[in-house]
């Protein structure tokens, strides 16, 4: 490969005006929470830096991350972002197939060894030597390890790559495993969600491009700028939560009034994501705005917390499915019953002793 085009060159080649390009830069800056001073820096980076080669691999997944990604809300995102990174391999989006596709991946890995970003959608199943997910005739886990070896950094797209998601739900027959347990020697940035928000996906890539490093991550390895606050912290229905005004049933008057969905099992208070600020589909809406509680899809194990429609988690360790209150109330009931019986026996014993003392005395 002679000279990799810059993003700006690619954009201009695709007929995007400089005005639109600058708009894109300023929108990206605000999406990343950066001040206006960063707009020229982003523009400068995109004008001068060669595009970052990205190899996008898919394991056990449903392709919802790709689907989200190609729907970047900003009009330019869908045109630009695919050109802005040099997407050298993505079997969902690339025209090539079969041997040609595999050859393209091998070539990209060789040419950009040590420089490319590995974007992983889905996860590898480890059971039966990885036979539950075969890509190009080989277990995905092998391909993943191979691709990770030459990567500069790894992006874990979605809940699958980050946490395991539904295919890792108990009892996890294929032993679907999040990628950080397979790739242990590379920096991994998690972009969880099922799928992640398109602007979050493009925003993270833009950040890595502009600054040449990973954004600030939280404790779990998620970019703090998008996963630093809970849905609940920025929810527009929050006043109803504080007021104690809840939807009590799906078709009640409170649902029509747009009250808080907490009692309907909304996981907003335990979910770190940017839905309540960025929104989905060009900011049109997000689950809570559409009248359905958050299911917590960007949190670890969201698929194994019992029903989506109750605040209290099911605990399976006790054999049957029960929530904390049922377990606790049962335990308290048993103890309370034991106390009552013990008290009764104590009283009898005491009465008995008194009579005895009288007889003896």
């Amino acid at each position, binding site marked *: 490969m002679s000279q990799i085009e810059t993003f700006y060159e690619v954009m201009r080649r695709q007929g995007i005006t400089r005005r639109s390009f600058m708009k894109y830069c300023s929108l990206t800056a605000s999406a990343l929470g950066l001040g206006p001073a960063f707009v020229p820096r982003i523009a400068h980076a995109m004008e001068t830096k060669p595009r970052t080669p990205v190899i996008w691999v898919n394991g056990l997944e449903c392709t919802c991350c790709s689907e989200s990604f190609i729907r970047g809300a900003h009009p330019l995102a869908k045109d630009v972002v695919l050109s802005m990174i040099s997407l050298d391999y993505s079997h969902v989006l690339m025209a090539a197939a079969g041997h040609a596709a595999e050859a393209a991946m091998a070539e990209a890995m060789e040419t950009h060894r040590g420089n490319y970003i590995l974007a992983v959608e889905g996860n590898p199943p480890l059971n039966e030597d990885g036979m539950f997910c075969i890509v190009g005739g080989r277990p995905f886990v092998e391909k993943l390890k191979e691709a990770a070896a030459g990567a500069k950094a790894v992006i874990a797209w979605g809940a699958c790559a980050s946490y395991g998601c539904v295919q890792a739900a108990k009892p996890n027959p294929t032993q679907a495993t999040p990628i950080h347990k397979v790739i242990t020697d590379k920096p991994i940035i998690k972009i969880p969600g099922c799928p992640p928000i398109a602007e979050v996906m493009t925003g993270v890539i833009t950040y890595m491009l502009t600054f040449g490093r990973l954004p600030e991550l939280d404790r779990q390895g998620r970019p703090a700028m998008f996963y630093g606050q809970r849905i609940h912290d920025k929810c527009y229905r929050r006043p109803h939560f504080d*007021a*104690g005004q809840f939807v009590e049933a799906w078709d009640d008057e409170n649902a029509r009034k747009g009250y808080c969905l907490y009692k309907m099992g909304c996981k907003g208070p*335990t979910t770190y994501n940017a839905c309540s600020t960025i929104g989905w589909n060009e900011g049109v809406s997000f689950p809570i705005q559409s009248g359905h509680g958050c299911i917590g899809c960007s*949190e670890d194990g969201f698929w194994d917390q019992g029903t989506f429609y109750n605040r209290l988690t099911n605990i399976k360790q006790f054999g049957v499915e029960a929530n904390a209150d049922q377990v606790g109330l049962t335990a*308290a009931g048993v103890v309370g019953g034991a106390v009552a019986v*013990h008290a009764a026996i104590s009283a009898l014993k005491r009465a008995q002793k008194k009579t005895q003392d009288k007889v003896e005395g």
Partner: protein
Amino acid sequence: MASPSTNVPAHDVAPEDLASVSRQTSVYVYEAPVRIWHWVNAAAILVLIVTGYFIGSPPPSMQIGEATEQFVFGYIRFAHFAAGWVLAIGFLGRIYWAFFGNHHARQLFYVPFWSAAFWAEVWFEIRWYLFLAKEPKKYVGHNPLAQLAMFFFITLGVSFMIVTGFALYAEGAQEGSLTHDLFGWVHGLTWNSHRLHTLHHLGMWWIVIFMIIHIYVAIREDIMSRQSIVSTMISGHRTFKDDRGD
């Protein structure tokens, strides 16, 4: 009515009272800070349990006014957080007193795990509660079984509730806050804080079970044992009902 004299324990004592009279030794065991902590702690736990239960399962929606004028759930949560702070600071004060108070103030914080005599006395207490021992032993402080229970329910239980509680509180206080700096690491253990909520919720029931046992046993011992229990936590004095040795 017996005539007043130096040997008579009280001036209204009746002959039948005199038959059951004993010397009534008393030992000052719980100093004021311990007693104050006990009752403040009890009050805080009561508030925490009621409000905590409501946070998990909110009361029916109320329509007092517009959401801007109404703060029902906000007050419930406020009460929970305020009581949580009282509990935590009280617990710190109690730990302080373990160092500077009398030796009974330390009993809550350890189990003499390697002492065979301790476990022998635990076994004796179990026999007493199973109605197998005729008469309980006398103790100035906690009996060994009580000490064991206090350690697991209160020392460990309350510590667990404080740590998990502040970790959950830190979510609202957000990154950069004092509580997040101190307790944010807990989320690194459970990841999805929904799990942490469940553990904290189970912890509440752990404390409820403690309350049932604690109140029952305190009253039962007050009646059936050879020493005072309930009044000791009010006056600080342990009084003994008989003069016999152990």
